[in-house]
């Protein structure tokens, strides 16, 4: 699979300014900008990083740059949500999509482990729903409280979840605003610190799982965000990353995205 990707990238570098992908060097594997003439044998697809963050950064810094990006399903979903919010210019981005493996799909509990613009690989079966999420409704309030209390108690306020998230691009972040979250406390205040983010993720989280991987305290953040995604679909019929034409529901009127029947808790 990787050879195929490298070949495609090599071809594209004739028309594009650069391709964003991972590069392996003596210094490990990191995001990179491959330009014409670069050694493409160094191009890698793992361990993954949220490459759309880099695409966004480059699109803003270089308003004319035409990029390609080697993208998994989650990368493409991230791109779709970022494009809607004017963080990435779809006219200046080519997606070189490839499918994840079945193991990767399982590990990420990924419902769609391949991009729409799929060029390499065959779509594996979707991963299962996270069992904690699947069984969540049966948990009584007190147990839910205990679950999150225990996990959030370990938070060291690194902001890694927010920093690594491709959808978190706000320059003024509510989590850092002393009006909402008392600064300088460990563990950060409950419920404000984590729930502000969870609410803000409601129409943005594309289930890439980077937040959980970046968390030094091993907090199962994706459980909370998966539940919000579930509500987003049930209440507003919206799946982040599915359709670039679908407007973000929380920003538009009820005529455009009506509320469905509220589900029970």
């Amino acid at each position, binding site marked *: 699979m990787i050879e195929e990707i490298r070949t495609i990238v090599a071809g594209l570098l004739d028309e594009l300014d650069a391709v964003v992908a991972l590069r392996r060097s003596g210094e*490990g594997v990191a*995001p990179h900008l491959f330009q014409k003439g670069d050694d493409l044998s160094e191009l890698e697809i793992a361990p993954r990083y949220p490459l759309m963050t880099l695409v966004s950064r480059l699109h803003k810094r270089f308003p004319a740059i035409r990029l390609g990006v080697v993208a998994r399903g989650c990368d493409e979903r991230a791109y779709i949500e970022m494009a809607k919010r004017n963080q990435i210019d779809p006219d200046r981005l080519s997606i070189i999509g490839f499918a994840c493996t079945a193991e990767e799909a399982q590990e990420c509990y990924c419902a769609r482990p391949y991009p729409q613009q799929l060029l390499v690989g065959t779509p594996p079966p979707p991963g299962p729903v996270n069992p904690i999420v699947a069984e969540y409704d049966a948990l009584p309030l007190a147990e839910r409280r205990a679950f999150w209390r225990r996990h959030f108690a*370990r938070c*060291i*306020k690194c*902001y890694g979840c927010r920093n690594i998230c491709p959808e978190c691009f706000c320059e003024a972040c509510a989590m850092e605003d002393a009006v909402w979250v008392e*600064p300088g406390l460990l563990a950060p205040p409950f419920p404000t610190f984590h729930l502000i983010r969870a609410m803000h993720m409601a129409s943005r989280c594309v289930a890439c799982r980077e937040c959980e*991987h970046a968390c*030094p305290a091993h907090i199962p953040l994706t459980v909370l965000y998966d539940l919000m995604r579930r509500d987003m679909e049930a209440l507003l019929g919206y799946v982040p990353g599915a359709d670039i034409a679908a407007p973000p529901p929380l920003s538009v009127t009820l005529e455009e995205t009506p509320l469905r029947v509220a589900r029970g808790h």
Partner: protein
Amino acid sequence: MDYRNTLTTCIYCGAGCQMYIETIDGQITGVWPAKTNQISQGRLCIKGWNVTGFVDSPDRLTTPLIRKDGELVPAGWDQALSLIAGKLRAVRQESGPDSIGILASAKCTNEENYLMNKFARAVIGTNNIDHCARLCHAPTVVGLAAAFGSGAMTNSIPEFETDTNCFLIMGSNTSEGHPLIASRIMKAQQERGARLVVIDPRETQLARIADLYLPFRPGTDVAVLNGLMHVIISEGLEDRLFIAGRTEGYEEMKAVVEQYTPERVEEISGVPADRLRQAARMYAQNRPSAFIYSMGITQHTTGVDNVKSVANLAMLTGNLGIVGAGVNPLRGQNNVQGACDMGALPNVYPGYQAVTSEEVQKKFQDVWGSTSHTGVGLTVTEMVNAVGEGRLRALYVMAENPMVSDPDLNHARRCLERAEFLVVQDIFLSETAQLAHVVLPGAAFVEKDGTFTATDRRVQRVRKAVEPPGEARADWEIICLLAQKMGATGFDFASPKEIMEEIARLTPSYAGISYERLEELGFLHWPCPAPDHPGTPVLHQGRFARGLGRFHAVEFQEPAELPDADYPFTLTTGRSIFHFHTGTMTRRTAKLHQEVPEAYIEMHPDDAARIGLNGGRRVRVSSRRGQIELGVRVTRRIKPGVVFIPFHFAEAAANALTNAAIDPTAKIPEYKVCAVRVEPCHQDVS
């Protein structure tokens, strides 16, 4: 367009996390966590994420500065270095090499610390070289060398996640001082049910999630440790095979420990007797058990005794020489381990080879051309006093800030203000640099190559990602230029790589370390005695570095200054996760500054009531040595009678209050215990 991700090692704590510094056309544009780094595994703490936040500060020093008519004015390199070289030569000529002192830097690379030690010994001819390890883990170096033959962390960080079954954390606020190490502890607890015992005067974050938390009176560590051992021995939980086969001195220690019944320990320390018993059993019965400690153990007049007691406990239970166990001092600075390894200490050369040994002197003399033949040199704490008394006429400080980190700051200020000739090399005009006669602009960690050695003896690369600002230069270049100005040879290195080659030739534990190997492997644990040696994650397997491990019989002694009627509270000091040490970098980093913009004192609500705080927000805190005003955080996480101040804030410096009383062997000040008075600040009502 030049897009680069440069892998380097974090400048802050001793965990040794790595990250990528992203640059576009030579400008820093971001930080990516390093998913392939063994320590950080794609995670970072808030300081790590913001590690470049201070690099572009407008406060960066960009030219040398020379004091003229009381003011520091910009000067050229040649002028500044000539001035320094001339003055040092003159002072040495007139008053001998020991009238000059050198402070190396736990923040700088191994190569730079090695060069400072070479400069001190080969160029100046003195052993008056020391650095801030004196103020933090000097007792570890002394105590563990005495007990095991090697003064370093015995195990390695990844083992905590995969192998440790019980963590005994004493005197370490790990989730704040070493967050990514705490991350491993948390994972082990969550995924493998590893037990967590925390012993701390404050209910730290880890204490709150611990299986057992033992609050205790600051400064009573030996009593608590002896008490734990008492329980283990009286309940037959000791490892008799290990004691018999691998140690000496057991009987004398046992005789002392027999006196420390849990009831007596409760009287001394406040730890409830039954909880002490539970902790002892948990530690002894869940091997491999890792003892983890930091400043809470070392920063005492009994620091060495405390460390020896920790070593006793680990040997008693056979928790040494095996994976997942050990005695694990968490070194605070990114390269304090390396600075010690490189001989930036008054009593040893690189590799802990004694300065008093004629054989060692000859070895270095042969390679360097000259070396010092004076005795053991002065420590940091002694140097400050010596400057004040005029015995030290010149002091050359690299990247350290004793004007905020030394104890009893008013005294330190009086001494340093009297300095005849003070040279400070730094990236900011720190509080210490503000007193200097000459200031040299050094390079930040992203602006030079080199290596750092993390707390678990892990040597990793530091890589240059951007150019230093203005005329600032890499510190290794500055030392070489100065040495050359003084007519020395042996300082014409083209790169830090070459410096490491010389280090490897002279330092047995680093003999197998080279830039080629570090490129290939990413890291190496010393001892690495040969070019094909894979490094040593776990020490003392099979035998201790000194042969047999040595038990020491240690009696409890009170701290130097206890609370009394005039100063009724015990002040203990420490860290906040949002800042680092004297704050020169973190307080210039917006994302960190906004979390904790100013100093604060933690106080129990009963104490707040007792002093009549009544909802007031600021207090005046005084000790026999000084006085500060700062905000107050009322919290139940600290015991009544004890207050806590983080030491990061120069304008409300905790160290204006602390006691300069030192451990007799390690010479570390007792930062963790002194007596203070706290009064509400009454605003004028008019």
